[in-house]
């Protein structure tokens, strides 16, 4: 589970669910901040900008929930995603998982209330923006098509629950309709929703690419994608090892986004914002709260966290960044691991050669731990395919940079990302990878930290801190050295192949001449010469030694015998 996004963390428990319910009850106690309305107007903040990106965002929200739900139950996730282009121009998205399902009473809040904090699972381990994520998809469906989101779920207790959900935008309350309950064997969650203003394609920003990368970073997951043209793409499971869960710790202030803070505020048992900060975060002391208060003079920290507003939360998060904190724990870093990455790359990319490097944890900004996992895969299905032949094999490939933060693929905003900058910084010529952008190469980078310094609200680009760029660069160079060995050997082999072809080319002529000179049978000569040529090339290949060539001086000092008069 998302030890990845270890940012938000509350005392995880079954309590959380109860708490959620409690929150629900209290929700009338404070003035509605109409978060639904806010985001209806500001959807680009949540990744809903552009038709392709919006669809990717929707799938991202559902899939991260599915991953969480599966991992929560210690289940190997099977996730099916179906995208269908409907006749009226709408796009139908169906995502189904085999996770632990959602208890009937939480379904409404989980999918029909923004910032409800109804994460009935452990909140700390979430990957995405669940506080808003899936619920916002419900809202997006509703505002673009006017249709409800259909849900089917079961905890695996032979009771299956289905309903249709919409959100009351004014009150940010779920409207659950058409509820059905029946018996059957099922476990997991199936969401079926229609959207408009979205487009499916296989571009590097699309759903296909998102799922492919998700599969690469999560070797324990099996993902099946049914594309609009009914093509079925399976990203098979590479490993049956379920990633270990992150140590349960409170979130560090540096690892918090505004929506996280809003979420925590809703769930907190504390009666004041000041006490919430101390109780629900690690490393926040009374002194630090004072510091924060000084930085946010307009906010009354003695108020109840329940009516914290979005702009206030934003200001506090900004202030978090200005206070000097004791760094978070090192052992909160959860890596995918070298072996797992290897299995995954082998599984998805089937490269001719790859190198995986998991670097030791380091710190940035004077104490925040992070670790870099990197890999370079060459050949096979590596790289992105610009074009394919009729059998679907790559004809033209481009190099690709696969960026991840805590296993979550980052498809957008590559330009400003520390990974991109580090990759540009490497002198690839030294590794025989000059112009890798046009080679069948996949460069994989997973940035692991409890606090990922994203450059924007979209969480799709890592801030180019000097220590981070340097570390990523070192990881890439370490991979590069290994790949270079392979590529050099490949070059040599090509040379040898070239040699062999030259040797063979002249054998016939040489045999003929020797037959002229000695009368020895030509066929016999050819057979023997070919055998020797094979051996010679084989030996050269094995030893990798360069043959001493061009010893010979060809002296043509003057042409006195060319028969041409000089007069």
């Amino acid at each position, binding site marked *: 589970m998302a030890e990845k996004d270890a940012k938000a963390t509350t005392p995880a428990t079954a309590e959380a669910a109860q708490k959620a319910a409690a929150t629900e009850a209290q929700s009338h106690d404070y003035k509605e901040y109409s978060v639904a309305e806010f985001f209806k107007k500001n959807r680009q903040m949540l990744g809903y900008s552009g038709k392709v990106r919006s669809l990717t965002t929707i799938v991202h929200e559902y899939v991260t929930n599915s991953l969480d739900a599966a991992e929560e139950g210690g289940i190997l996730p099977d996730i099916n995603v179906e995208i269908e282009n409907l006749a009226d121009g709408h796009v139908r998205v169906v995502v189904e998982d085999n996770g632990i399902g959602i208890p009937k009473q939480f379904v409404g809040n989980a999918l029909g209330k923004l910032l409800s904090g109804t994460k009935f699972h452990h909140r700390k381990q979430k990957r995405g923006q669940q506080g808003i994520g899936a619920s916002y998809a419900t809202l997006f469906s509703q505002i673009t098509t006017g249709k409800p989101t259909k849900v089917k779920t079961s905890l695996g207790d032979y009771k299956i629950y289905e309903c249709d959900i919409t959100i009351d935008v004014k009150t940010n309350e779920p409207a659950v309709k058409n509820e059905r309950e029946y018996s059957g064997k099922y476990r997991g969650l199936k969401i079926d929703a229609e959207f408009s203003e979205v487009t499916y394609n296989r571009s590097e920003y699309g759903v296909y690419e998102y799922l492919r990368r998700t599969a690469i970073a999560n070797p324990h997951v099996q993902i099946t994608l049914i594309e609009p043209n009914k093509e079925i793409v399976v990203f098979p499971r590479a490993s049956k090892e379920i990633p270990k869960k992150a140590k349960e710790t409170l979130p560090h202030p540096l690892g918090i986004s505004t929506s996280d803070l809003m979420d925590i505020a809703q769930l907190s048992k504390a009666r004041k914002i000041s006490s919430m900060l101390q109780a629900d975060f690690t490393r926040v002391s009374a002194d630090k709260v004072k510091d924060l208060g000084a930085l946010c003079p307009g906010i009354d920290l003695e108020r109840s966290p329940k009516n914290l507003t979005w702009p206030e939360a934003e200001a506090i998060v900004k202030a978090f960044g200005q206070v000097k904190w004791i760094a978070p724990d090192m052992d909160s870093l959860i890596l995918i691991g070298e072996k797992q990455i290897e299995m995954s790359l082998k599984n998805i990319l089937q490269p001719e050669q790859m190198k995986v490097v998991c670097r030791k944890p380091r710190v940035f900004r004077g104490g925040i731990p992070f670790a870099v996992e990197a890999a370079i895969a060459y050949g096979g299905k590596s790289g992105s395919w610009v074009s394919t032949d009729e059998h679907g094999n790559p004809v033209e490939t481009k190099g690709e940079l696969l960026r991840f933060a805590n296993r979550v693929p980052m498809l957008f905003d590559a330009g400003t990302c520390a990974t991109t900058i580090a990759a540009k910084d490497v002198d690839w010529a030294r590794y025989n990878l000059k112009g890798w952008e046009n080679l069948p190469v996949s460069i994989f980078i997973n940035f692991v930290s409890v606090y990922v310094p994203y450059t924007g609200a979209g969480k799709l680009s890592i801030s180019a801190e000097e220590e981070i760029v340097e570390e990523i660069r070192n990881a890439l160079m370490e991979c590069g050295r290994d790949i270079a060995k392979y590529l050099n050997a490949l070059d040599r082999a090509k040379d040898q192949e070239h040699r062999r072809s030259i*040797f063979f*080319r002249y054998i016939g002529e040489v045999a003929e001449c020797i037959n002229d*000179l000695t009368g020895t049978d030509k066929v016999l000569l050819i057979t023997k*010469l070919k*055998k020797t040529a094979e051996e010679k090339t084989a030996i050269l290949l094995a030893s990798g030694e360069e043959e001493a060539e061009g010893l010979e001086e060809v002296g043509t000092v003057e042409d*006195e015998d060319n028969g041409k008069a*000089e007069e």
Partner: protein
Amino acid sequence: MAAKKEAAQAAPKQIREYDAETMQKIQTLAAALLQEIEKGENLHIDIPVRGASNVTFNEKTKKIELGDKFARRYLFNVAHARRFMQTLLVASYVKKDLLENNLTATLRDLYYAKKHTIPGTKEDTIDEQKESDLAIVDFEVALDTFRERLHLRAEPKGRIAGEMVVTDRVKDKVDTIDLSKMGSGGWAVPSIVEQVEFKDVDAEYVLVAEKNAIFDRLNEDAYWAKQKCLLMTTGGQAARGARRLLKRLSSELNLPIYCLTDADPYGWYIYSTMKYGSMALAHESDRLGSKDMKFLGMSISDIEHYDLRSVTIKAKDVDIKRAEEMKAYDWFKAPAWQREIDKFLDKKIKAEIQSLSSKNLQYISTTYLPEKIKSQDFLP
């Protein structure tokens, strides 16, 4: 005439012996290759290196000599394979087409005979004649023999006239040729002169001119008859046949040879090639170099002495460059030559032999040559 006939019959026997020897050398080479094939070894031919790095000037013998450096050429070496194949093409042609049929051919004949597309490829065995020419020289030096023994000839070049009777043969036909009765053109020197026999000779020296025009001038002036000499032209850089003939005239008839070229570095280099041999054919200096040849003219000193300043030509950059190179050659290290080259580099002028015609047309035959020869005013 009976004596002549006897001599004529002796020659072919000798030539056949040479052929047998050449054949033997080829067989030895082929046997070595065959053995390598049997053992699964890389086929190779050792070829003495030609060119500046393996060429020395022997002060004592006055010859440009080939050193003992050789390069080993392999079949299974990307850089060598093609040339190796071409060398064997030469070997096969020489043995099967020439020696076995007692025929001679030109370098061009060989080029066309062995040029073909290699089956299953788009590559030709030989692209340009230059390639097969180089392969021929490789083969010559590898066998430690020379082109004529391989029955290969270059384009013939050079003419000769004078009081001498020779016999020449075309296969089994023997012709007697009186070089004093060859009209205005003289006798064309064949590309291979091994079979030429010198009979009656009435000459005191050989005058060899670089230029055809000078031969024609002196022939018209009956210079060779008046001066009792053999008159020859090489028509520019001397062909092997001409060089070999000069060498034989010098060594077999003990005739002094005087050389006449333009007063410029290229002319002088033609002289040095006839006298000492050349770097490209260093392996044949022995056969082709007439070490006792003398340089009669023209020199830069001649320009001064005969007051030809008004008819000189300004030296070009290439002339200067050539002169500078030659100044460094060991065989131009004689003080007299160094002085000449220095004068040239200093004055930067050159002159053609024909500039003597500025005096009058026959000045060369009536004044210049007799004076120079009489006073033995030569350069070494």
